[in-house]
């Protein structure tokens, strides 16, 4: 599989990354290199293997349903660029 320039632009848009034209070709070539590596997984010898959700052969530990965090709003919001009445303020978003 190899990525066309249009596909590159679409992926860049989804990731909210601005790709300047003079960078696009180098980036496309890098990504195509990664895709070539991924293509190796199409090897027919792997067809019978169950896909793994995780590289570690371990299972998820579960946490008891208990409230352990207390209100630490002041600290956690200290780095917010804008806030008011306990709310984070962000540039206006309209659905």
């Amino acid at each position: 599989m190899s990525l066309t320039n249009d596909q590159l632009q679409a992926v860049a848009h989804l990731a909210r990354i601005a790709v300047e034209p003079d960078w696009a070709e180098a980036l496309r070539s890098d990504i195509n290199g990664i895709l070539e590596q991924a293509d190796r997984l199409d090897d027919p010898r792997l067809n019978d293997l169950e896909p793994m959700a995780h590289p570690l052969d371990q299972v998820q530990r579960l946490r008891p349903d208990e409230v352990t965090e207390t209100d630490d709003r002041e600290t956690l919001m200290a780095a917010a660029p804008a806030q008011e009445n306990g709310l984070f303020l962000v540039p206006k978003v309209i659905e």
Partner: protein
Amino acid sequence: MSDYVIPSGWEAVIGLEIHAQLATRSKIFSGASTAFGAEPNAQACAVDLGLPGVLPVLNEGAVRMASLFGLAIDAEISRVSSFDRKNYFYPDLPKGYQTTQLARPIVVGGQVTITTGEGKQAREHTINVTRAHLEEDAGKSLHEDFHGMTGIDLNRAGTPLIEIVSEPDMRTPEQAVAYARKIHAIVQYLGICDGNMQEGSFRVDANVSVRPEGETAFGTRAEIKNVNSFRFLQRAIEFEIERQVDLLETGGEVVQCTRLYDPDRDETRLMRTKEDADDYRYFPCPDLLPVVLDEATIKSWRAQLPELPDAKAGRYQSEYGLSAYDAGVLTASRATAEYFEAVIARDGADPKLAANWVMGEVAALLNRLELEIGDCPVPADKLADLLERIGDGTLSNKLGREVFEALAEEGGSVDAIIEARGLKQISDTGAIEAMVDEVIAANPGQVEAYRGGKDKLFGFFVGQVMKAAKGKANPQAVNEVLKRRLDGD
């Protein structure tokens, strides 16, 4: 109930996606509280905010609650399930992805039975559930004006949800509402969701398409998002069916899209079409390992299942002799069933009388006051007191209603109200005979006409005696004495 009829020659195909907030104390991946109504961002910890370096740890309570739902609808509980990331950018999703289950959901399959119509028109339908998966809720965006900016409250971020996806098995808005109500009842019976639709604890998306009757292929569908009441669900689907049929009948075509229902204008409005649909780039979440459940755990959860609405309705019919319709109404919500059961817990209680009162006076009162049964101003034990006084003949049904109104308005005890208002029914035969004799003596013309064959005048005599007794005479005793005096001599 709506009397909506789908346009002739057309069939609607409806599937629902229901998001139910799980009633855990803490969030799905963090130890922050999920309580509703806290100060903004007071319950958003570093994990919920997606700060660098934090790791999620899955809440056992959320896994158990999702599994209970699966067991309740006879679904398969996945022995191995896993989490994926659904990527999109929105300020109320601080991590830039929602942690959800795509490839291996915790609940697979299952079904519920719904009933539409009443009496002879009653029909049962089986609605299949495709899957139910665990995921986290997003925060809330407040679009009121903060100097041209949007306010973000992340208290809800990370609240556990199950998304319950149905097969496209429903053919009418009525069936869709009945299915949504049944799921709503089940999650409340299980105690895994408070079901509060106003607060967004239970949200419904509807996928709606239409096709000519007899066609087997599906039409193009529209998805109606975030409907927050059963009435709006009915109206939104009705509107959407009409919109699509109109389009197709006038030579247009339905475009796959997402729509929002606007209750003020009673219409669905376009949100986005498929062309600009999001590409979520799902991939397995590397921060969470596969969730593995063993047989013993699932068995212990199965043992926690309470009596569910269908089983309860069946028992009300066999044990109490209630009709299928009455049993269905009384078990439709856990709170109603609990109220009813508290009323009939009294020794010597008459379940049919109790059913009539709960579905009649109590329902009418709640309707009038716009209250839920949990907030009923006449608590179950007071209604039990009242029904006891009807049962022992102290009160007629009519006087009972008067006492009920007094209980609703002023509270107090049933016996005190009967005493204070002098509502005690007159059952003493001697007193009733005296009143009957007076009425007969005062109306010789009517007596003659009645005895001459005008049977309908019997009601007139009953009315006169009741008037003399100020409505407090035992109606059965009045009937008996009148019959004896009028027909006997």
